[in-house]
Every structure is written in structure tokens, then in C-alpha cells.
């Protein structure tokens, strides 16, 4: 096939891909260069398309602002907790669904996947009351649990697929050797799930970092607010005209997940697509 394609056609394909890529990546580029300029440059026409390192003032302002630093810290704490809880719960559930065929297994799989169908916005109407009763309002573990619930369906599905690809014979060998069920899962299968766990972990982190609605409802006290809520309050309220600051905080909010993704993207893609395609 390859040697039948003209070099002209190949070039055309490359050009198209690069053009489309440029269109998709341009806003990110725009965000980066905007963060390095100050408002007097940004609020002027014509807009500068090239980067100028006019100022790092905006960055200094963000990093010296204790409020923003707290928001970032809160997001990190919640996202980390979400990852840990999500991993533990989804490994258990994925292994369970993969290895054991108990009554109701199909129904449970369907329910797990359908959990993400319920509109979050309808959940939050009553969530306030439930979380208040269980003293989960304005707590890191409260928000983490909520984020975990949102990530679990896909996490369980991903890990179940990965589990399915680990041969059963390993389990049985372990059983013959006298290994208990729990130990079999932890010592034998778990280590082989590392790529899957990595994918689930990153996915959970991304979902939690991105979360706006749950954080809005659960974290009402300023020192506990997460980054998306803090950004929304600041830049869609009082400082709605501080475009330089807006771009800077956007960069700061995007960098952790961008970097995480760029380093681990292989696992992410494998996780996302592994489950869907095998069907």
C-alpha cells in the first residue's frame, strides 16, 4: 500500500495534519503568550500574534497570592485523594467483575456503567443535604468521594478489561499454591495491572482536577475552594477585565495536567481505547 502512494499524496496528508494540528493548538499557544504580556498590551488592537516576554508580573502576582496558592494546593490534595481511593475501589471492583461470575454480574456491570448517566447537576441539588448530614461538607475526603463516584464507572470498566487480559492460569496456579483469594489479587494479579492502574490514576486525576460543579457545591469556605471554582469566582466576577491575569492563571491551572498527560499519554490512550475496542 505504502509504495503505491505518491509522495505528493503523502506530502498533502502531512500538510493537512499539520494545519489541523495548528488550528487545535493555536488557542493553547495564545494562552501562553497572553500570560507573558500585560493588560495594556492585551487590551489594544491589533492583537500581537508573536510572543513578547513583556513581563513576568502576572506570574509573580499569582505565585505571591496566598489565595491562589491555596486553591492550587486544595485541588492537588483532592485530586490525589481521588486517585488513591479510585484506584483501590476500581481495582477491587474490576478484578471482581473480571474473575468471578456471580449472579447478577451482568446487571452489576450495566449499573456501574449507567452510573455516569445521571446528571451531576441533579445530584448536587440533594447532595448538599446528604453531605451536611454525614458531615462531609467542606472536607477534602467529602469532595474526593464525590469525584471518585464520577470517575468510578470508567475506571472499573478500564480495569476490568485489563484484568481480562491477565491469564486466569496465574490465579489458579496461585490457588493451588495455597494463596488466599485476597492475596491472589494483591500479589499475583495486581503487579500485572500496572499499566491499567496508571491509566486509571491519570484519568481520575484529570477528572478531579477539572471538576467545577461538585467543588462549587461542596467547598463553600474560601480556604478550601478548589482551583476551577476560585478561578471562576475571581475572573468572572470582580476581576473580569484582568485578561493578563486570566491567561496566567489559565496556564498555571493547565500545566500540571498537561505535563502529566504528556509524560503518560501512552497509558492514557491504551486505557481509553483498550476497553472500547475489544468489544
Amino acid at each position, binding site marked *: *500500500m505504502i509504495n503505491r502512494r505518491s509522495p505528493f499524496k503523502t506530502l498533502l*496528508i502531512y500538510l493537512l*495534519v499539520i494545519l*489541523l*494540528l495548528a488550528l*487545535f493548538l493555536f*488557542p*493553547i499557544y*495564545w494562552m501562553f503568550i497572553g500570560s507573558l504580556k500585560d493588560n495594556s498590551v492585551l487590551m489594544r*488592537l491589533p*492583537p500581537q500574534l508573536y510572543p513578547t516576554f513583556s513581563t513576568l508580573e502576572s506570574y509573580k502576582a499569582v505565585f505571591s497570592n496566598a489565595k491562589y496558592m491555596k486553591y492550587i494546593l486544595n485541588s492537588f490534595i483532592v485530586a490525589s485523594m481521588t486517585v488513591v481511593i479510585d484506584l483501590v*475501589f476500581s481495582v*477491587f*471492583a474490576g478484578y*471482581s*467483575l473480571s*474473575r*468471578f461470575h456471580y449472579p447478577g454480574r451482568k446487571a452489576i456491570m450495566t449499573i*456501574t456503567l449507567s*452510573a*455516569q448517566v*445521571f*446528571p*451531576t*447537576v*441533579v*445530584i*448536587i*441539588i*440533594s*447532595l448538599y443535604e*446528604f453531605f451536611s448530614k454525614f458531615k462531609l461538607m467542606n472536607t477534602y475526603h467529602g469532595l474526593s468521594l464525590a469525584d*471518585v*463516584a464520577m470517575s*468510578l464507572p470508567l475506571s*472499573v470498566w478500564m480495569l476490568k478489561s485489563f484484568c481480562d487480559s491477565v491469564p486466569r492460569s496465574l490465579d489458579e496456579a496461585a490457588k493451588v499454591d495455597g494463596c488466599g*483469594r*485476597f492475596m491472589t489479587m494483591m500479589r499475583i494479579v495486581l503487579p500485572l495491572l500496572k499499566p491499567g492502574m496508571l491509566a486509571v490514576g491519570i484519568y481520575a486525576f*484529570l477528572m478531579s*482536577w*477539572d471538576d*467545577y*460543579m461538585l467543588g462549587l457545591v461542596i467547598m463553600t469556605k474560601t480556604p478550601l475552594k478548589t*482551583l*476551577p471554582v476560585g478561578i471562576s469566582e475571581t475572573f468572572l466576577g470582580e476581576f473580569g477585565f484582568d485578561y493578563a491575569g*486570566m*491567561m496566567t492563571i489559565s496556564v498555571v491551572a*493547565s500545566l500540571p*495536567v*498537561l505535563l502529566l*498527560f504528556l509524560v503518560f*499519554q*501512552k497509558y*492514557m*490512550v491504551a486505557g*481509553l*481505547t483498550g476497553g*472500547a*475496542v475489544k*468489544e
Partner: protein
Amino acid sequence: MTKAVINARPHKGISEKWKDHLFGYALLLPTFSVFSLVILFPIAKSIVMSFYNYTYASIKKGPTWNSFENYVTIFEEGFLSQLFRTLIFTVGTVGLELVIGMCIALLLNMNIRGRNAFRSLFLMSWTIPSIVTALLWSWLFNAQYGLIDFVLSRIGLIADPNMQWLQSPSLAMVTVIIAVVWRQTPYMLVMILAGLQSINQDLVEAAAIDGANAFQTFFRVKLPGIKTVLGNTIITCVMSSFQQFTIIMNMTQGGPMKMTTTMSIATYKLAFTSRNLGAGAAVGVIWMLLLGTGVTIYNHVSKRFDYE
């Protein structure tokens, strides 16, 4: 053989099979506890709330049953237009995601070098947090200083260099659709690409040998090959568009003049801005009914097509 032996043994406690089952159930407990706490109970409560008069004032004095009054209220408040707008938004976003995602996936599928690198670069916009997407595109569409107005007016596509996008009743929907498509297309792209790459290459080659051109290969060989993946991905994207809140809320707040108020925004505004939690819940209930019906229909239809 083994079965007979086991059954012949006198019952000492629980059988191995059931020990397995119980272990399996136990492993599921954490997951289902979280589901119950965070999803099941609140949804059930919200459904119940939709039949009560649940406003801030009534929380203190105790909510009263008002049967379908909330449902009548939401229709008066324009539920049908909200539904309509949600459908437009969903069709617009998923449609664009499908077309653009498919094009890029087909291009990347053509055995070019650095395909994985390109794929990862395309995925970058998917990782950008939604709030940042909202801010970024609000800035690009800014009527006074935004890049889009500048470029479009310079190349003569629009007349007014300060044309309103986010505050234009007709164009606001376009802005949120573009922002969401920018963020979601990479997901569609990655799934389709993976699907395309799992198609048996022999089939494609056979089609080529039979003299099929690109179009025929696409529609007769490739598309059916990725049918399941495509279907599932489209469903996921549809549900995600229905639920979209952060980007719309932070770009247009559902305006101007309610032109971008989808059911998601309407639920939130009714519940938290107008503080009528019962009415907000009512919108949610109808939404879930519609979703449930839609998914059931899809399942039946896709099962039918599977047998072709």
C-alpha cells in the same frame, strides 16, 4: 466429573463456589457504597423533591407536597425551549466532533510517520481544564479585544470589528459549541483511530484489489468495522454534551436572553439562583426520563443492526 465429587461431600459450611461469589460481592462493596452515597440516594431524593414545594423559605417551615405543580412551573418557564436548545447544542457539538474527528482519524490512519506523536499533540486540548477552556474562548471571542473579531473583520468576513459573539442572541450558541468541540474532539478522534487501527487490514486490501475507491472503502469496509466503537463513543459524547455545564455557565451564563440555557443550566439556575429546588429537580427528572428512553431505543436499534 468434579461437580459430582463436590456434591457428594457432606456440606461443611459454604461451598467454594459461594465463597468465590461472596468474595466477589465484597470487593464490589466499596464501589457501590460510594455510588449509593453520592449518586443513588441524592438522585432518589431529587426525584422525590420534584413533587414538593422546596424553596429556601420552605426549608425552614417544612416543604409541602404540591404534586405536579413544579412540572407545570417549568413548562411555563420555557422547558420546551430549553430542551430544544439542548438538542441543538448536542447535535451541533457531537456532529462537529464526529466530522472533524473522523477526518483527522482517517488522515492519521494513513500510515504516516509520527502518528502517535501527532495523536498525543491533538489530545492536548482534551486535558485543558474546562474552566480554562471557557476563559480562553471567552477571550478569543471578546468583542473589544478578541482575536476572532479582528481576524474575521480584517479578511472581510464580518463587517463590524466589534461584533458581539457571547452576547449575541444568535451567535452565543456558536461560541459555546466551538469551545466544547475544541475540547471534546480529541476524545472522539482517539477512539475512532483506535477503531480504525483494529480493522483487519486484509479486508481493506481485498476491497482495493476489487477496485473499490476511497469512498466505497470507507462506507463499506471501514465504517462497519468501527460501528461498535463509533456507537459507544457517540453515546458518550451525547451524554457529555447534555451534561455540559462548566463551559456554558462560565462563558455565557445561559444568556443572552436565555439563548444558551440548556437543561443543565436551567436545572442549576432554578435550583440555586431562583432557589426553587423542587423545580430544578423536576427538570432533572424529565431529563432522566428522556435519556432513559433514548438509551433504550438505541440499544434496541443497535441490536437489530447487529444481526445484519
